[in-house]
């Protein structure tokens, strides 16, 4: 790439040592979406865990939140090169949701209102690594940011933190979700820059 546009320097992009390779710190919160924004009333909202044998457990909005909400402060990294550092969130740990659900499965497909899917290894959703989140930056999640609830898996690229999440399906194989089928990496570790196939 040898052409350089005279006088163009791009937006002011901050560097920070806490950033994974290829990421730029931003202060705003860009909205990215693959389709129309679902509008779900919490009165109609439900969350379902389906095991690899088909057994299902359901929670209503109040039931899921009653499992215990905690505060989280974490960095998030989008595969489109922006990162937000030290973001405050509130949500229910996946550990609490999956506690007591017997499974031999190794992988999970997260499902969302609107049809979005993304796959994550089960052991990367446990041990304090993931939540169903309801609030970010001190306020309930806006629909355009995934509200009323989204998955939060901050150690992986943020396309794995499925907006409008409504369930987890345990699976034996690492089946690819929406973006993973379209060209993105099955795993998505920002520190190894696992962006694409």
């Amino acid at each position, binding site marked *: *790439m040898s052409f*350089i*546009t*005279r006088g*163009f*320097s*791009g937006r002011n992009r901050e560097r920070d040592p806490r950033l994974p390779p290829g990421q730029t710190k931003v202060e705003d919160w860009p909205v990215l979406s693959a389709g129309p924004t679902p509008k779900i009333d919490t009165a109609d909202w439900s969350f379902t865990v389906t095991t690899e044998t088909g057994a299902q457990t359901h929670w209503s909005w109040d039931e899921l939140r009653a499992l215990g909400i905690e505060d989280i402060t974490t960095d998030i990294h989008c595969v489109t090169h922006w990162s937000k550092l030290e973001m405050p969130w509130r949500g229910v740990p996946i550990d609490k949701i999956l506690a007591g659900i017997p499974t031999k499965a190794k992988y999970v497909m997260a499902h969302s209102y609107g049809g979005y899917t993304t796959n994550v290894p089960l052991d990367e959703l446990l041990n304090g690594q993931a939540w169903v989140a309801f609030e970010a930056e001190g306020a309930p999640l806006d629909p355009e940011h995934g509200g009323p609830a989204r998955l939060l898996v901050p150690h992986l690229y943020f396309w794995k933190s499925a907006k409008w999440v409504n369930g987890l399906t345990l699976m034996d194989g690492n089946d690819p979700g929406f973006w993973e089928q379209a060209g993105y990496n099955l795993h998505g570790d920002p520190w190894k820059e696992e962006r694409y196939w």
Partner: protein
Amino acid sequence: MSAPPAEPVEPPAAQRTAWRVGTVVEARPETSSARRLVIDVPDWPGNDAGQHLDVRLTAPDGYQAQRSYSIASSGTGTRIELAVDELPDGEVSPFLVEDVMVGDKLELHGPLGGYFIWMPQADTHDPRPVQLIAGGSGVVPFLAMVRAHAEAADPTPFRLLYAVRQPDDVFYRQELTQLAANGLQLDFVYSRTAPRDWPVPAGRITKDALAGFAIPASEKPRVFICGSTGFVELVAGWLIELGHAASDIRTERFGGK
């Protein structure tokens, strides 16, 4: 021995699409937030009225930003014209409106798009009238269309409904007024401030105004709508309610509300 072909065969439209470098030969303010740029592209293959191109900017550290812009000109020739409106938090438009200077080179990808184009009746044999509906800077592809229409002395009835916030936001006012004197049916809708002595108070476009200014559905016009997403969806929805077939309407949204 058979006669040689009269003209060279034209490559299919999409094969003419390529990355090229053009030189800015003219840059002048169009409105308080927009600028007209004329760019000389030596190997430009020509473009249809309504097509667009992508402008790509590259910073010294390799960072790139790219946006699409409708081309206000059409036909053959190496000079192409853009009219760029500056978006307050834009990445490319502020550079094109405020920083680019005559003599600068720009990387351009085009001509692009065969869906949102108008071609003269001599080529399409389609006698139906054409209704153009522009929201703000969405008028740019229609500039190319009305210019091509005039140049071809095309008999197709052409009507342009142009919605802007205030009189100073009108692009190409002089040229449009001239074309209006020569057969183009031109109507303005002002949403925020109307000119003095304007017969109606300023206000957002309404379904009734649209019905009043647009070619009626009974004449089965081909309709083109270009503007922000909110504008296009509003107008397209009303046109369907007014009896236009969805297949007769082509839209070009440029995002935003």
